[in-house]
């Protein structure tokens, strides 16, 4: 059951990202990405992280991607922009991707080998996660809140039209 669900969600996730690479239409891209993020939320649920799964869906699929679509609507291009056709960029990107894939794969293999055996049950219930956030990670948590305020004010200042500029 769990394995089936994993393959289903994984396929959905990878497939929609592939679709995003192949499609030219920005709005379709954004919607495919929403699908991919939502299925990632399901995968987080499979990994015993219900709180992060909900956060992923609420913030990533429900807020960040809405912002993207909002900007796409504002920009509202008539025809899609074709993907890069130059051969060398495609080759470069594929090469880079494969290189990184191998490197990361080796790194992950090492990591997995080193931590094997001490796995205990760790269900990311909201209570546990909240306790950790407000004790061990209190400092980063506060810094994040400052970061968000700065981003909020920054975004408003950036996009706001000046009065004399019309």
């Amino acid at each position, binding site marked *: 059951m769990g394995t089936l669900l994993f393959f289903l969600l994984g396929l959905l996730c990878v497939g929609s990202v592939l679709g995003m*690479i192949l499609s030219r239409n920005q709005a379709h891209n954004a919607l495919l990405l929403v699908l991919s993020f939502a299925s990632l939320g399901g995968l987080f649920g499979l990994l015993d992280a219900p709180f992060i799964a909900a956060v992923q869906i609420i913030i990533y699929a429900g807020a960040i991607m809405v912002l993207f679509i909002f900007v796409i609507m504002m920009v509202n291009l008539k025809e899609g*922009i074709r993907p890069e056709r130059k051969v060398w960029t495609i080759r470069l990107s594929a090469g880079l991707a494969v290189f990184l894939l191998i490197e990361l794969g080796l790194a992950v293999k090492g990591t997995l080998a080193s931590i094997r055996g001490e796995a205990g049950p*760790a269900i990311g219930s909201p209570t546990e996660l909240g306790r950790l956030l407000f004790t061990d990670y209190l400092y980063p948590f506060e810094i994040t809140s400052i970061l*968000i305020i700065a981003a909020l004010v920054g975004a408003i200042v950036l996009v706001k039209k000046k009065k004399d500029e019309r």
Partner: protein
Amino acid sequence: MIPVSYFFGLSLLLFALGIIAFFIKRDLITMFMAVEVMLNAANLAFISLAKASGSLSGQVIVFFIITVAAAEAAIGLAIILLVFRQKKTIKVEEFRLMKG
């Protein structure tokens, strides 16, 4: 029980796809989306690491990544919007300010 290595494999695949999308696409918004894909691949890796090691720190870090990604998306999209207002386009080749 699904082996954690499956999730790692998926996250690596997603990361590679994100890189390819970033290089192939030519409009700023989709390139930005490709960055988000890579961030999510990293999130998946962190959460599977949390599962494998039995500690919740990985999940806390993902929480931070998501909040920072929200801030980053807001700022990034504001910049894209600003660029669009000035240049009336979001194709990357049109921006050659540094070329003189």
